[in-house]
C-alpha cells in the first residue's frame, strides 16, 4: 500500500516550485496507514490468547494477563483487537480492487465504444448509483446471508459506478489527444491504441480514484460488521466489537474505545492520504 503510494509524493516534493502553504507530502498519514494495515494483517499472529474463547469475567479492568481487559463476554480484548482488523481490511481491499477493475473496464469501454453505446452504458451505471451504498450491502446481505463474497460484491457494486464515470472522463481526454489521433491515422489498431496509449495514461487517475474508493469501502465493510452482516458468529471484527461493547462503556472503556479509535485512525489516515494523492496527481497532470 505505502510502497505503491510513495512515488507521487516524492516526485511532487522535488518538482514543487510552489508558494508557501502548499500541502506537504502525506508522510504522517502514510505512516499511520502503514502501521494500522500492518497491525490488521499481521495482528492475528501476535494474539496472546484465543480471540473467541471466554477466559474471564466480563468487563475486567486491564491487568498483566489481559492488557486491554476483557469484553462483554469475558474474551481477551487485546487478542480480539489484533485479530479483528484482517477481515475488514481484506474485504475492503478486495472490494476496491474489484470496483477498480470494473470501473476501468466499463470506463474504457464506454469511452472507446460508439457514442450511443457509451451513453447507454453510463445510463445503466447511473441507475445503479441511485441506490445508497449501504442499501446495496443490506439487500445483498439479505439475499446471501453471512457470505464474504457477497459483501465484497456489494462493496464493489456500490463504489464502481463513480469509478466508471471518472475513468470514462479520463479515457475520453486521452482519446481526444493529438497522439491518439496520430496513432489511429497511421493505422494502429484500436487494441494497440488501448494498450500503448490509453491504459498507461489513465493509470494515474485510476490509482487515485481507487485510493478514494478504498475510504468508502473501509466505511462500508466496518459498517457491515457493526450491523452484524457478513460472516457471523463469534469471529472478531472491529465494527462488531464497537456495537458489542458500547453498552458497557461505563464499566470498561477499553473494549469499546480500542476498536473505535483504530477504525477512526485508519479511516482518517487513508482519507487524508487519498485526498493528498488526489491533489498531487491533479496538479501533476494539470
Amino acid at each position, binding site marked *: 500500500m505505502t510502497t505503491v503510494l510513495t512515488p507521487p509524493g516524492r516526485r511532487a516534493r522535488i518538482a514543487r516550485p510552489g508558494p508557501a*502553504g502548499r500541502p506537504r507530502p502525506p508522510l504522517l498519514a502514510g505512516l499511520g496507514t502503514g502501521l494500522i494495515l500492518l497491525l490488521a494483517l499481521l495482528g492475528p499472529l501476535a494474539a496472546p490468547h484465543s480471540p473467541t474463547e471466554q477466559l474471564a469475567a466480563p468487563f475486567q479492568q486491564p491487568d498483566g494477563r489481559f492488557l486491554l481487559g476483557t469484553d462483554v463476554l469475558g474474551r481477551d480484548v487485546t487478542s480480539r483487537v489484533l485479530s479483528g482488523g484482517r477481515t475488514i481490511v481484506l474485504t475492503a481491499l478486495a472490494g476496491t480492487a474489484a470496483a477498480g477493475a470494473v470501473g476501468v473496464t466499463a470506463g474504457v469501454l464506454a469511452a472507446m465504444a460508439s457514442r450511443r453505446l457509451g451513453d447507454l452504458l453510463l445510463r445503466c451505471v447511473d*441507475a*445503479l448509483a*441511485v*441506490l*445508497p*451504498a*449501504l*442499501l446495496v450491502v*443490506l*439487500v*445483498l*446481505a*439479505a*439475499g*446471501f*446471508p453471512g457470505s464474504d463474497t457477497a459483501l465484497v460484491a456489494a462493496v464493489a457494486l456500490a463504489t464502481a459506478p463513480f469509478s466508471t464515470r471518472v475513468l470514462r472522463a479520463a479515457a475520453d481526454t486521452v482519446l481526444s489527444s493529438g497522439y491518439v489521433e496520430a496513432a489511429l491515422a497511421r493505422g494502429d489498431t484500436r487494441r494497440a491504441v488501448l494498450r500503448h496509449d490509453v491504459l498507461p495514461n489513465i493509470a494515474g487517475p485510476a490509482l487515485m480514484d481507487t485510493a478514494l474508493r478504498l*475510504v468508502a469501502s*473501509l*466505511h462500508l465493510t*466496518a*459498517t457491515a460488521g*457493526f*450491523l*452484524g*452482516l457478513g460472516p457471523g458468529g463469534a469471529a472478531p471484527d472491529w*465494527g462488531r466489537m*464497537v*456495537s458489542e461493547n*458500547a453498552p458497557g*462503556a*461505563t464499566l470498561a*472503556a477499553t473494549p*469499546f*474505545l480500542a476498536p*473505535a479509535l483504530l*477504525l*477512526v485512525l485508519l*479511516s*482518517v489516515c*487513508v*482519507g*487524508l492520504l487519498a*485526498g493528498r494523492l488526489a491533489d498531487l496527481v491533479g496538479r501533476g497532470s494539470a
Partner: protein
Amino acid sequence: MSLTVFVGRRLAAGAVLLAVLSALIFAATAVLPGDAVSAVAGVDASEAQRAEVRAELGLDRPAAERYAIWVAGAVRGDLGRGFVGDRPVTEVLATRLPNSLLLAGLTLAVTAPLAVLLGLWTGMRGGAADRLVSTTAQVLAAVPEFVMAALLVAVLAVWLEILPRVSVIPLGGTPLDVPHALVLPVLTLSAVGLSVATRLLRVSVADAAASPYAEAARLNGVRGVRLAVRHVLPNAAGPAVQALTLTTGALVGSAVVAENVFDYPGIGRELQLAVAARDIPMVQGIATALAGVMLLVLLAGDVCARLLGAREGHGR
C-alpha cells in the same frame, strides 16, 4: 420546455428506473429461495415441512413468475406480507417512513444553513480558517457514522448523562412527543451531512467567487456580506443545490446506521431487522421504497436547480 413537461418526463423516466431497480433488488434477494424457507420453517425442519412451506410462500414457482405477481400487487399498493409476524409491508412503511423523514428533515434543517454559511466563509476567505474547516470536514467525513454515533453516546449519554442513550418513543406516539430523544440521532446525522455538504459547497463558492462577474463586483467596491449574498451565492446556488441533493442521498445510508444505534423506530431500523431475520418480502418492499425516495429526492434537486437557473437567467 415548460416545467410541467420537464417534471412529467422526469417522473416517467424515474418510474422506468424504479421498475429496473425493483427487478434488481428482487433478483438479488430471490436467487436463494432455499434460505428463505429455512428462515420460516426453521433449520431442522423435515423435507416434507420445507416443501409445504415452500408451496405456501409460493417459492416453488419460477422467480420471473414470482416477480410478476409481486409487481402486479405493488402497482395496486400491496407489497405483500413479511415472513416475521405476518405484517403487511405497506403498513410498516406507513408507520415507519414518516419517522425517518422527520429525522432527515430535521437534519437537513440543521445542516443546510450551516453548510451554506461555512461554505461561503471558507470558499471566499481561503487562508488558515479555510484550511482548518476543510481539514476538520475531511477528518469528520472519514469517521464512519457508527463510530461517530457510538462516541457521541459514550460521551453525552453514558459519561455526562445529559441525553437518553436510546430513542424510546411511547407506543402510539410520534418522535415529536419526546424531542430530547431526537437530539443524538440528529446530531450524528448532521455531523456526517455537514462534512459532506461543506466540502462540496466550498468548491462551488470558490468557483463563483473567482468568476469575472464576482471580480467585476469586487472592483466596483462591493465587499463582505453584500458580495457574498448578492453576487456569489446566486451563482453558486445551482451547484449548491446539487451538493445538498447528494448529501441527502448519503443521509439515507447514514440514517440506517443512526437509527440502529439509537433504536429509533424508523424505516432503516426496520430494514436492518428484516435483513437479520431473512424477511425477504419486507427487505424487497423497504428497499424498493427507499430507492423510490432517492429518485424523488434527485428529482426535487433537479427541479430546484432548474428554478434557480431560470431566475438567474431572467433577473439580475
